[in-house]
């Protein structure tokens, strides 16, 4: 019996940050290190003092694994490794390693430069943190140390997102991070093999959601863009280079072609370069379709979409512009926003979540008067729309993943307890596994039954399978043998073999029973009577009358003596070894019945 205990200093009924500590067969692994997007103070970081009061984290943790580059999964990493202190290995996929530092730096800039916070990690800390990162490939088994190994699986969701299997001996845990079971235009669906982990840790934020179909969202997006452009307005779509920009471009291009629209669509060059660069690097992480088109041409070569120039923003007439960064916190997208915000014919469509403190976040919360640099007030009259295409697993997806992996236990993180009772029952009923839903900071202990592999000697196997009913694939067969545990190996051998190997002698057990017989004649006559009786009854056995006056039945010995006090009674001593127990008992009960009267 072993423990796999899960403790969630971040996620676990708390939407906002993920950070899970798993203890498996003595190894301690931290899964994700996210920050809470809603808080401005220390509450945004997980409380690491829970892990170990004294003693260094580097000694306590065997490794840290980061599932993907979203800030609620990696945002606290530099704080954790550089400010709290951790020097051990940090594992993540290659795309995550490439993209994490960019997002962390962006986030740092917003928090420190824009909001003037002081207790925050520095750019150098981000760099030092990334030096501790070991990048892994999909389906590559990575030995963290002699006993602990990890393997990454494709998770969909965003570029580079992975689900991780953590294995120590024959015990394993699979952590999903954020994943998605339906493929979209630029990413495939999550996939895992039937690895049968002892525990599957899955996010369940969207477990209670039944999502509107993608086609409807896209239809509404196109409708909005079309309406704005028709009335002569301008549409700004701030994007992160690797988010949905590619998908939205394809969508607009097809729509423009079909509707024969003339308004120009632009994307900023910074966007093209970055996107092309990353897609080239990580082409295997995108889905089939993208790979095919990429091989043929430049990702961003469209008929209707052209490169943007700063000056175009002042052009009259309708247009659509994709610009970075995605949260309107700096750079080109913010510049364009400032130019277009005052006109109610224009529209800005935010395609994703915005961190607190950014202009994007403010306008999505409904703010329409923004304070810019130099105390200038910007009045926002343009339409603000929000559209989320982010891909998470819903209840159906979670069930699919459990069906694929076949875990023995399931643990749900990332949702509210009340709302997960139904899903918990659903999982327990359908898969007959236990389902846990820990609260933030709660420790869950899961008992596992480790499988211990044992070698069986061929001779024993042959012998045992020959006994009893024929082997049946559906029924377990009971076999008897002796378990030898020697030099870290387990072997099942026959008892004789075991005795030989261990240099032990087999003990001999002998039983002796006294049977009283009424017979006044001499002993040797009684013996003769017994001999003839047994010879007649036990025709299949070897019954012998030995010269010394004893009788043997197989290896059982029978001797007769007179009773010490009563001459009329003879005492038969029946003696047998443990191996002949059955025959010995039978013989005894036979003799106890008495001898037949007629005797020679």
């Amino acid at each position, binding site marked *: 019996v072993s423990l796999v205990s899960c403790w969630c200093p971040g996620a676990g009924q708390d939407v906002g940050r993920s950070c899970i500590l798993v203890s498996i067969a003595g190894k301690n692994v931290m899964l994700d290190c996210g920050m809470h997007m809603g808080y401005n103070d220390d509450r945004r970081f997980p409380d690491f003092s829970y892990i170990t009061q004294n003693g260094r984290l580097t000694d306590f943790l065997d490794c840290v694994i980061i599932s993907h580059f979203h800030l609620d999964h990696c945002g606290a990493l530099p704080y954790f490794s550089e400010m709290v202190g951790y020097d051990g290995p940090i594992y993540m996929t290659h795309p995550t390693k490439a993209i994490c530092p960019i997002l962390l730096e962006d986030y740092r800039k917003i928090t420190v430069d824009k909001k003037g916070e002081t207790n925050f990690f520095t750019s150098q800390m981000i760099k030092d943190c990334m030096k501790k990162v070991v990048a892994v490939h999909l389906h590559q088994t990575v030995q963290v140390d002699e006993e602990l190994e990890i393997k990454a699986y494709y998770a969909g969701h965003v570029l580079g997102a992975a689900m991780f299997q953590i294995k120590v001996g024959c015990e394993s845990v699979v952590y999903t991070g954020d994943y998605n079971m339906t493929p979209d235009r630029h990413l495939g669906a999550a996939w895992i093999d039937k690895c049968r982990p002892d525990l599957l840790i899955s996010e369940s934020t969207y477990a*209670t959601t*039944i999502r*509107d179909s993608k086609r*409807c969202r896209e239809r509404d997006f196109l409708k*909005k863009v079309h309406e704005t452009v028709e009335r002569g307005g301008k549409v700004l779509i701030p994007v992160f280079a690797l988010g949905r920009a590619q998908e939205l471009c394809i969508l607009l291009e097809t729509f423009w072609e079909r509707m024969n629209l003339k308004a120009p669509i632009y994307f900023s060059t910074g966007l093209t370069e970055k996107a092309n660069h990353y897609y080239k690097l990580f082409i295997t992480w995108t889905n089939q379709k993208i790979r095919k088109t990429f091989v043929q041409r430049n990702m961003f070569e469209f008929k209707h979409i052209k490169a943007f120039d700063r000056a175009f923003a002042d052009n009259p007439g309708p247009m659509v512009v994709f610009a970075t960064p995605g949260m309107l916190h700096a750079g080109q997208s913010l510049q364009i926003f400032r130019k277009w915000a005052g006109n109610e014919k224009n529209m800005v469509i935010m395609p994703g979540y915005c961190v607190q403190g950014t202009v994007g976040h403010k306008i999505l919360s409904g703010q329409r008067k923004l304070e810019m640099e130099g105390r200038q007030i910007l009045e926002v009259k343009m339409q603000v729309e929000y559209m989320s295409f982010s891909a998470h697993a819903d209840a159906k997806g979670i069930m699919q993943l459990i069906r694929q992996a076949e875990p023995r236990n399931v643990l749900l993180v990332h949702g509210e307890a*009340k709302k997960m009772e139904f899903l918990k029952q659903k999982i327990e*009923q359908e898969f007959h596994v236990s389902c846990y839903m820990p609260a933030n900071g709660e420790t869950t202990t899961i008992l596992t039954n480790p499988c211990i592999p044992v070698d069986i000697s061929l001779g024993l196997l042959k012998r045992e399978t020959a006994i009893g009913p024929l082997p049946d694939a559906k029924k377990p067969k009971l076999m008897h043998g002796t378990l030898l545990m020697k030099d870290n190996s387990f072997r099942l051998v026959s008892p004789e073999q075991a005795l030989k190997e261990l240099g032990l002698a087999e003990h001999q057990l002998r039983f002796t029973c006294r049977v009283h017989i009424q017979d006044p004649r001499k002993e040797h006559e009684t013996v003769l009577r017994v001999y003839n009786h047994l010879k007649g009854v036990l025709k299949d056995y070897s019954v012998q009358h030995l010269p010394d006056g004893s009788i043997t039945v197989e290896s059982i010995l029978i001797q007769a003596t007179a009773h010490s006090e009563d001459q009329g009674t003879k005492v038969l001593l029946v003696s047998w070894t443990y191996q002949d127990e059955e025959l010995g008992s039978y013989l005894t009960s036979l003799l106890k019945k008495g001898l037949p009267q007629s005797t020679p």
Partner: protein
Amino acid sequence: YRDLHTFELQAPTRLIEWARGSRVCVAGYGQSDGNEILQLIPPPTLQTKETQGLCPERDFKVECGGFSKRPVYSLKYVPDTSLLVTSGPPDSSLQVWQVSAEDSDVIKSVSTIATENGTGQPWAKIDTISARAPWVLHGSRLDSVQITEVESRKNVYTAVSRGSEELSGLAFLDCNTLLLCCATGQLCLADLRQPQSPVEAVSVPPAPCGEQWCMGTTHGAQGSEPSSQPVARLSSRGLLTLTDLRKTSESLASAKARVPSPGSGAEFLCVSWAPALEGCLAISGFDGTVHVYDTQSWDSSGREAEPIFVHKGHAFGGADGSGDPPLVTVHTWHLQKPRTLLSAASDGSLHVWDWVQPCGKC
């Protein structure tokens, strides 16, 4: 369309029921164990009267759910209580459930209302009312119609009937009047104030020829005359007749819907009146479409009528294209938004749609 949202349920449903607080309930009808009853919170766009378009929250959320061992063919909330009642094969008994969304998200099975000689009977049609006490009206045949008090499971009324035809629907017209519709199309009325007199057959469908019928009634306002709204009947051949219960000797109007023939059977026939559009009704159950008709232009000739809108979304559903095309199992009108309907099909799809009236009428 003005608006169209398509969703996919994990298992298809053949019922869509509205509950307090704009909640919607669906349930599985599969033969195996583990059918789910789901109470859903619709996205904010559907809860308000105005359409919002691009909105962060566009999804249905499962508020609570329960597990049913038998397929759920019919479900009705019991007004003014936290209970709901379901029915389904293999017999005509009812299951009572408790919904307590604040405490937990599990819909718990509370009790069973058994029926005498209920085994082997077709599943019970149900309706609920809480005028004098929480009551459920149920029955699978004309001679097994009864009213049971939900909490105590006591019988309060048993209808007297000469016939034993199978029922396709029943309803409380008000707290004293019951309307029963047989699968043969016959409509019967019963008055609770006269429990000894048998149910009165009031209308036989025109030219019955072995087809199956179902009915649709409006949810009249509490105080209004129960029979002021016409009752619509739909047959498996697409015939529609409207009957005024005050004058049942002849039908008010009738028409023929353009539906594929032979029909796919009467399993999912559904006809319903629009709560906020005068004279409009919708039908479904023949294929993957939902038809909306304006009955104000109908007469009694029974000729073919032109629908004012046809929702075809479900027919384009199945991505695999394998097996049979999806069949719309049920539809219902939004209670406040006049031109919004919800429809579900046998492939698990759930659509919410709002159409644009091409020419000014409705």
